[in-house]
């Protein structure tokens, strides 16, 4: 069964450094999403992406965040200058769109020291 994959599974970085989190969505899906979950807390929407552009973003998704679909398969989240409070699990999701559910990847645990 097709699934969303994410790399790396765990990323440790120093404050102020740039990180890129990678995702490979399910191949025939058209909508892509990033969420984050601070340990033990709820899942927070960051951004949705469709047709090579951002369709919605939350208040969390400020100028230090960017997303890109550099080729036909990858979907990336870049954090330009990481802060301690960016430490969280980042989930990528994809979906066919419309009313269908989203399928979540296994997540990347980002630790900022």
């Amino acid at each position, binding site marked *: 069964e097709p699934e969303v994959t994410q790399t790396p599974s765990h990323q440790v970085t120093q404050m102020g450094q740039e990180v890129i989190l990678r995702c490979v969505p399910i191949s025939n899906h058209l909508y892509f999403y990033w969420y984050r979950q601070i340990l033990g807390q709820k*899942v927070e929407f960051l951004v949705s992406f469709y047709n090579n552009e951002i369709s*919605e973003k939350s208040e969390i998704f400020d100028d230090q965040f960017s997303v890109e679909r550099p080729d036909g398969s990858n979907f990336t989240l870049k954090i330009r200058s990481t802060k301690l409070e960016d430490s969280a699990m980042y989930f990528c999701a994809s979906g066919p*769109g419309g009313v*269908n559910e*989203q399928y*979540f990847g296994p997540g990347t645990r980002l630790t900022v020291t």
Partner: protein
Amino acid sequence: ELKVEQNPLFLSMQEGKNYTIYCNYSTTSDRLYWYRQDPGKSLESLFVLLSNGAVKQEGRLMASLDTKARLSTLHITAAVHDLSATYFCAVDIDNDMRFGAGTRLTVKP
């Protein structure tokens, strides 16, 4: 701003008992989703509810949606230990998915 509230946040149940988790949301939507998350794992889709009065059942779980009351319920029947997890409801408004805080369910023998 869309707000999604779940209660209870923590639920400890005995095996064999029934209980209901509630999900209230603040803005009109007819797209509500329930997900399950095991500790340290990703989110697994349980139910997609798309219309007023929708009811879906899978095993010991049953979900319903009342769009007029802006309320969804997840009912657990005769709980078993394997149901221990965190359950999230989520509401979709134009591709902006907002999650509730989650209900951490523990089922004790």
